[in-house]
């Protein structure tokens, strides 16, 4: 295997020329995309350079507390993202808490188990392993949970009459909400199921490609990718289940009533 080829900043400048061409085309064709393209590209450059510096210092300091701090803020940011992506949210702290809690439980929990047993880095919280794995797991769990909660809350508000009809016929809250819950779980699971089915044929995952580019044997890179996909699949599934069950529990009460007043109303499209 050939080794790792380091890139120079000139290489990057050269690569960015293609994006600049796109910007010029947009100007010439009056597409009005050039501003958005430029801002997005600039954000990407700044964010990635900063994260590179941050990771570099984290890796050299090797402090468990700093690693924990970064991991916690990753979970909180992902939680905020889940909250923001729902059309109708649970009122109060519950809105942020259920998504974030589910991610902390499933995403962080599974990452810790993987680090301590399968990856076996020493010490297990070594940021070079912990943070990238947590990032990949959280990114996907976040997607699944936000899709599932959005589908659940929309479905419950839209089908209030049919849910209450079932409650009135003497069904329990779990049984009356089962059709909506099942649909919400399906939307939450769909991205990861699709990703697992398409991987290797339609898409070559970024992590595996990166490892191959840096000189790792493809069969070894595949093993890492499989590990990560299993972790992502497991964490997404558990996170989606925890978040939707928590939300159903909050939107009903012990007398088997539907408590829609605990849900915010969506903003009307302007």
């Amino acid at each position, binding site marked *: 295997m050939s080794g790792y080829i380091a890139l120079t900043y000139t290489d990057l400048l050269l690569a960015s020329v293609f994006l600049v061409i796109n910007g010029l085309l947009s100007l010439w064709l009056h597409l009005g995309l050039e501003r958005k393209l430029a801002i997005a590209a600039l954000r990407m450059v700044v964010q990635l350079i900063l994260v590179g510096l941050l990771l570099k210092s984290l890796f050299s300091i090797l402090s468990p507390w700093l690693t924990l701090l970064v991991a916690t803020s990753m979970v909180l940011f992902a939680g905020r993202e889940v909250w923001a992506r729902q059309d109708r949210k649970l009122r109060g702290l519950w809105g942020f808490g259920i998504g974030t809690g589910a991610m902390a439980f499933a995403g962080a929990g599974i990452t810790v188990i993987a680090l301590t047993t399968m990856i076996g880095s020493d010490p297990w919280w070594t940021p070079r392993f912990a943070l990238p794995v947590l990032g990949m797991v959280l990114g996907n769990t976040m997607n699944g949970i936000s899709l599932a909660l959005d589908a659940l809350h929309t479905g419950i508000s839209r089908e209030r009459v049919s849910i209450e009809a079932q*409650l009135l016929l003497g069904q329990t809250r779990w049984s009356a909400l089962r059709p909506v819950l099942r649909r919400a779980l399906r939307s939450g699971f769909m991205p990861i199921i699709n990703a697992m089915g398409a991987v290797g044929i339609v898409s070559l995952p970024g992590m595996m490609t990166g490892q191959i580019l840096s000189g790792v044997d493809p069969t070894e890179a595949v093993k890492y990718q499989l590990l990560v996909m299993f972790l992502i699949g497991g964490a997404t599934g558990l996170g989606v289940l925890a978040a939707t069950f928590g939300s159903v529990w909050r939107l009903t009460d012990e007398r088997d009533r539907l408590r829609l007043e605990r849900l915010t109303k969506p903003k009307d499209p302007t």
Partner: protein
Amino acid sequence: MNPENPLLKVGNLTRLMIGPVSFGVGAGECVAITGPSGTGKSVLLRAIVDLDPNDGQVQAGDVIRADVPAPDWRKTVAMLPAESGWWLDHVAPHFQAPDKIRGQLPLVGLPESAMGWEVARLSTGEKHRLALLRCLEGKPKVLLLDEPTAALDHDTTLQIEALLKQQLDLGTAILIVTHDEAQAKRLAHRILRLDGGQLQQVAA
């Protein structure tokens, strides 16, 4: 009918702008509730079946609401809401035993084949009549009906009323919300008026 010991006993029921109200409905008795729109007649029915948070003591025979799980309570005291709800594509699976109910469809002016219909193609009135049969299937002791004939023509309305009288003969207690004064007079033994959150007897 024994007014001293009613089948449905409501004591100091309070919910939002309603109450506290207390009243009873005897076995085989029909009580109608009338009143201007927006006074909370539906809210009152929902509170009795415990579909919304509320305060008060409610009892059906020797079943005390606070002592039983809410699903059991709603099987004893059943409510037919003004808008019927459906959660599957076809009519039949909404019933516990569709084959037994099929024969009763003519009682509400529908053909027996209605059991195989698609919910999406039902009219409001058809849905409502099917929902009434579905509600009766659990053999509740007390029936709370919210405008049960609002979407129906006169002949079908009379047919539904005949079915309800049959239920009264079986000893069911019925509390019916209606805008139709003629219907209240035809069916009800007593008429209560809900206004300003309080119930008042209109006629005996």
